[in-house]
């Protein structure tokens, strides 16, 4: 046994020596920002194609746009970016942008109106998932040569009809509005793909950062652009590491190996709050939780039943228990911080009121099915609903399934009740108004599966026309008021009960300043960050 003993002792000593001599870092360098985040949703870096949260985070820091949001003054709305000014034609259909002089791409090429023309045309022609953000203005692959035109230092876009200028410009702040370096992209074109294959994994922008490497499900490394027109960013290197687990993110943050942890669960948020040197930020995001009632159901289509169900939700109970800190009560389809958003939440849990309404509708012993995707918080919401509905005599059967199972039934109008989430596509009120309160053809043949109102077989009863009117209103204040009115009517009549708006809680080192995640309207900005 002596040989064995020697072997085991040697192995143990070897390990001990090796592990105890490891250097330990107290904090990340002053010019480097290290973030832990779940980035397994990044599918492409091409701004004409990217449509996921983590991808938008990268794109916002890499690509300049004609107009953009100032991360330190989001409330001001869109501001000049690569376009320093713009004018609107008298008929309201054409917007002419004057490009900012002296801005360069990462390649050193100057940013020109021709690059902007190419980028927007390219997004329309490629027609990838987010292309609808531009094509809703009437741009098509066939007409882009006439509707998106550069002339010297200006770019003119002409829409198919008059739209609110704020609507058009808000859409141009979306990821798809990123301006790419035409020469670099063209040099990497293959089989007429307008550089799409190359741009999936490479970048050609003029923003504050350039992507040094992207390893799917592992990390994104960005290095600063010293020639960024707003000034060289203080963080010369930004590393976003894919860390799936909340507990792991918290450990990394508390050890000082990362500066920001973006996916801490409520327990870890509570734990990290008491740690010296760690700060917790709350920021409202655009995601809404809602339930909707299929209007093909004979009982659910009764106005009193729709009202009753809105009184059968324990909003406060959920907010203060399992959703604590992660969601806030919000009963309107425009997330707070959006143009036209309101913060009126008239519904509270009121079983007696709900019973009255159900009796008035002549409904008793109602048994309905709710479809829920297999996500913990959604299932818990459904269970809470099941409990409160039962108190009013409604039996709610919960069907849990995968996205494919539940969404397929929802899109086929096959569920009595759907419980799910919705996130805006671009930072303009039309993004949600145009799906919750808009349904021009409620027939089965229309197959407008992209519209939530259609999925619930809801003829909006005049709201569709009001949404159409709001989207062309030129005056920003008047337009905002129109959305207030639409939402007031929606709250009372719609077969949707909007429940909560997402709050993102972020843990960060106290020395990290000016980090904004983009609120409900855009993505994270790294260039203002200092330590």
């Amino acid at each position, binding site marked *: 046994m002596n040989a064995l003993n020697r072997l085991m002792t040697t192995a143990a000593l070897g390990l001990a020596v090796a592990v105890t001599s490891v250097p330990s870092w107290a904090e990340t360098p002053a010019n480097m920002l290290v973030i832990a985040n779940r980035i397994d949703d990044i599918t492409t870096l091409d701004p004409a194609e990217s449509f996921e949260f983590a991808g938008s985070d990268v794109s916002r820091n890499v690509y300049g746009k004609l107009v953009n949001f100032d991360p330190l003054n989001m409330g001001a709305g869109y501001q000049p970016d690569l376009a320093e000014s713009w004018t609107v034609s008298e008929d309201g259909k054409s917007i002419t942008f004057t490009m900012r002089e002296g801005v360069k791409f990462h390649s050193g090429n100057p940013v020109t109106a021709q690059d902007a023309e190419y980028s927007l045309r390219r997004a329309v022609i490629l027609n990838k998932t987010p292309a609808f953000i531009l094509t809703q203005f009437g741009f098509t692959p066939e007409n882009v040569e006439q509707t998106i035109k550069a002339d010297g230092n200006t770019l003119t876009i002409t829409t198919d009809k008059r739209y609110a200028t704020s609507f058009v410009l808000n859409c141009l702040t979306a990821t798809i509005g990123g301006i790419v370096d035409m020469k670099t992209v063209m040099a990497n074109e293959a089989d007429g793909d307008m550089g799409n294959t190359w741009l*999936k994994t490479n970048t050609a922008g003029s923003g504050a950062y350039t992507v040094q490497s992207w390893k799917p499900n592992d990390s994104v490394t960005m290095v600063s652009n010293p020639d960024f027109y707003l000034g060289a960013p203080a963080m010369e290197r930004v590393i976003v*590491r894919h860390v799936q687990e909340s507990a792991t993110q918290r450990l990394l943050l508390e050890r000082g190996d990362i500066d920001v942890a973006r996916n801490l669960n409520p327990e870890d948020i509570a734990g990290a709050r008491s740690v010296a040197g760690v700060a917790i930020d709350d920021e409202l995001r655009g995601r809404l939780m809602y339930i909707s009632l299929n209007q093909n159901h004979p009982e659910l289509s009764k106005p009193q039943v729709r009202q009753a169900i809105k009184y059968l939700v324990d909003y406060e109970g959920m907010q203060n228990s399992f959703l604590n800190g992660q969601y806030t009560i919000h009963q309107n389809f425009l997330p707070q911080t959006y143009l036209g958003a309101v913060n009126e939440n008239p519904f509270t849990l009121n079983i007696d009121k709900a019973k009255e309404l159900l009796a008035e509708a002549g409904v008793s012993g109602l048994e309905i099915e709710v479809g829920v995707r297999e996500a913990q918080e959604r299932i818990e919401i459904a269970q809470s609903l099941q409990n409160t509905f039962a108190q009013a005599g409604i039996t709610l059967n919960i069907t849990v399934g995968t996205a494919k199972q539940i969404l397929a039934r929802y899109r086929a109008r096959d569920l009595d009740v759907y419980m799910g989430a919705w996130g805006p596509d671009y930072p303009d009120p039309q993004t949600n108004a145009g799906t919750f309160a808009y349904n021009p053809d409620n027939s089965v043949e229309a197959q407008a599966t992209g519209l939530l109102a259609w999925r619930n077989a809801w003829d909006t009863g005049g709201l569709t026309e009001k949404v159409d009117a709001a989207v062309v209103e030129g005056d920003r204040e008047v337009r905002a008021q129109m959305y207030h009115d639409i939402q007031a009517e929606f709250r009372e009549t719609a077969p949707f009960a909007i429940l909560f708006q997402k709050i993102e809680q972020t843990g960060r080192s106290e020395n990290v300043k000016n980090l904004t995640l983009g609120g409900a309207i855009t993505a994270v900005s790294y260039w203002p960050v200092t330590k």
Partner: protein
Amino acid sequence: MTFGSVTVTMLGLLFVTFIIGRVMPIDPVLSIVGERASKSTYDAVYNQLGLDKPLLVQFFYYIWDVLHGDFGTSLLNARPVADDIRRVFPATLELASLGVLFGIVLGVPLGVIAAVRRGSWIDQIARVVALVGYSMPIFWLGLMGLLVFYGILGWVGGPGRVGIFYVDVVPSVTGMILIDSIIDGNWTVFKDAFSHIILPASLLGYYSLAYVSRMTRSFMLEQLSAEYITTARVKGMSERAVIWRHAFRNIRVQLITVIALSYANLLEGSVLTEIIFSWPGIGSYITTALLSADMNAVLGGTVVVGLIFILLNIFSDLLYRVFDPRAK
């Protein structure tokens, strides 16, 4: 294993995986177009992916591509699946190899000692170690390990393969950072990478140890009660010779199977370990792909895992012939 049986096994694996991938309640089209896409957009992508064709036709196309070394393109990140696997597999290989090494170096002697000193305190310890290794959830053990050795004591590096200062510092030759840093002669990176791998590898090694030591003990007990061992002792042979030259020599073939199985299990990718330690290996790759309905990636990963099993089987067969003359 003969060439024929390898081919049949691979075809069977491909077929079963392919069919499961098609009947699972996940939707690759939805992953690409998003839930708000119109029906026409959905249908266009559905056809573009070839999902409108009969299953057997789809399977034939897939086999044809695989035979040409083409696992297809990841539906989600648009990269060739083969490239992704080349990136993630070395991470798992490195982790699993170190893990199984721990399992063998510590597990085999522990099993032998436990069998030789049956009923002693060391046997009891070995049984407790094995029992804990089998019953403790790896998720909990991993988090506790991180909390104690990284969070509190600071003895080891945190999650990830290397610290942020050493990412992409050494050129990737094998994809295994420990080996690449040795090739590059960069001992600082080696040390850092070792500090990151030691904890997850020990954790995997512990599970391997639990299995290997239990099986070794069992095999040895069987041999030690055999008549030829009694004969050897009666003939006056030293105890060391009885144990190592006779009893242990006769369990080598069985041990090879156990170790090969243990290694194959670790190489499959210990998903939870990879998730806790943010280790970008093949286990988390396949899992993420599965949850995202990226069937090309799932199938590619599964084929690689299947190949590993087959290669380890072949290797075991070869070792049998070395250690057991009857197998020649």
